[in-house]
């Protein structure tokens, strides 16, 4: 164990451009997937928080459950859809970064929607009366509350990013772990583990954790800055 750690640290120093390219791909795929997740999930979550319609509680329960969607199942279903023999095969997306974005977006969207719904529902409990007294319709209330809770929603985005960049089950199945094309940090770590090169796998793991910390730090800085400017 100690020896592996020592090797890991020396390997970190020698990580090359390939690793940078892999890290960049991971970052790009996950950020794109989270962007899609936010674009779909925030309006959906806000809608479920402010709108009142029959069956809403069932929908909310389902959405909360989907936060635990198993990545490998998402990967498998997407694989069958995107396979050349599947209904969406003509898109030619299988084994491309686009397929990995789709898989991670499918994982991120319910998470964003469920957390957004909770945040907005809480804010509505505080401010809903006030907003209603201003004569705002439900859609406008939803938008006002999204704006009001925007700093809390950053945490939601970070949770979605964490889920996207750390998963392997879905990207492995739909991406195929193709060297230089769809190899991400997690599939690379898995491959090196399989090859028995544990110190390299661990070094890559440290890079991945560093990446996640970096993204979180950037988000925290931006949020603090924005809070000072507009808070």
């Amino acid at each position, binding site marked *: 164990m100690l020896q592996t750690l020592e090797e890991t640290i020396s390997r970190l120093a020698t990580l090359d451009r390939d690793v940078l390219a892999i890290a960049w791909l991971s970052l790009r795929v996950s950020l794109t997937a989270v962007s*899609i997740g936010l*674009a779909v999930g925030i309006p959906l979550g806000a809608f479920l928080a402010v709108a009142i319609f029959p069956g809403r509680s069932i929908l909310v329960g389902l959405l909360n459950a989907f936060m635990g969607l198993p990545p490998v199942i998402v990967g498998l279903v997407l694989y069958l859809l995107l396979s050349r023999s599947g209904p969406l095969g003509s898109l030619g997306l299988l084994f491309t970064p*686009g397929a990995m*974005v789709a898989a991670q977006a499918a994982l991120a969207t319910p998470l964003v929607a469920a957390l957004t719904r909770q945040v907005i529902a809480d804010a509505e409990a505080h401010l809903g009366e006030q907003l209603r007294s201003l004569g705002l319709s439900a859609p406008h209330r939803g*938008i006002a509350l999204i704006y009001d809770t925007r700093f809390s929603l950053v945490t939601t985005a970070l949770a979605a990013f964490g889920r996207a960049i750390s998963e392997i089950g879905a990207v492995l199945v739909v991406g*195929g772990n193709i*060297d230089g094309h769809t190899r991400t940090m997690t599939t690379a770590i898995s491959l090196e583990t399989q*090859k*028995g090169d544990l110190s390299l796998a661990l070094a890559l793991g440290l890079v991945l954790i560093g990446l996640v910390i970096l993204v979180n730090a950037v988000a925290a800085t931006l949020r603090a800055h924005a809070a000072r400017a507009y808070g």
Partner: protein
Amino acid sequence: MDILRRGLLTFGLLFALGAASGVRAEPASIVVASTTSTEQSGLFKHLLPLFEAKSGIAVKVVALGTGQALDAGRRGDADVVLVHDRPAEEKFLAEGFATKRWDVMYNDFVLIGPKSDPAGVRGGDVVAAFDKLAAAKAPFVSRGDRSGTHSAELRTWKEAGVDLASVKGDWYRDIGQGMGPALNTASALNAYLLADRGTWLSFKNRGDLTILVEGDKRLFNPYGVMLVNPAKHPTVKAKEGQAFIDWLISHDGQAAIASYKIEGKELFFPNASR
């Protein structure tokens, strides 16, 4: 409504960002479904840059077990399959998913086990060794993933007259994973297993394991390459795929295969008949 506009703007931006990073012009490329042994032994990393430099065709390798790789071909998700399980390849041909199979190279399987060899299988006869393993109920790791190596293991049990279903027990670990994970598991359990020599040579976490049986001609492990039949799947890139096959079996391709060595040992032996 200021808030509304700003909200819309933000979403628009996010969408644009997503779209921009998703779209990218691609050079000509093919998908090759192959086996974990060719990927994890590092062979493709050695071969592909040579082919890509010569042809300008990018090769994307998806490493699966032989059974899964052939299935990817059947679904039309790969243009070329490069695998090592002759009976399964013959079936693929018979089903019409390919029209021709080319010999490319071979290596051999080796029986790996703990240096102390508690079951006493060391030697040159793999069938006798399997017989002893079953009798001793020595810890054994099986790929269990329909790969070429898994097929070879099952064939060997059969030749040894061992009925796996009846003797299977705690000693027989069916892990359902690739060659690398199987080696890792065997290394951790100090168990026996059948491995292809290429992956073994490039494997780093050997622990107490060593080669116990090798050189038996029943351990011969030939690799074949096939173009997925464009008549079955019109999306198959037949021209580029065939160019890859032609290169593999050409003098250059065969020499490239022979030149891949780890610790001075050749991993795969070219045998295209041309």
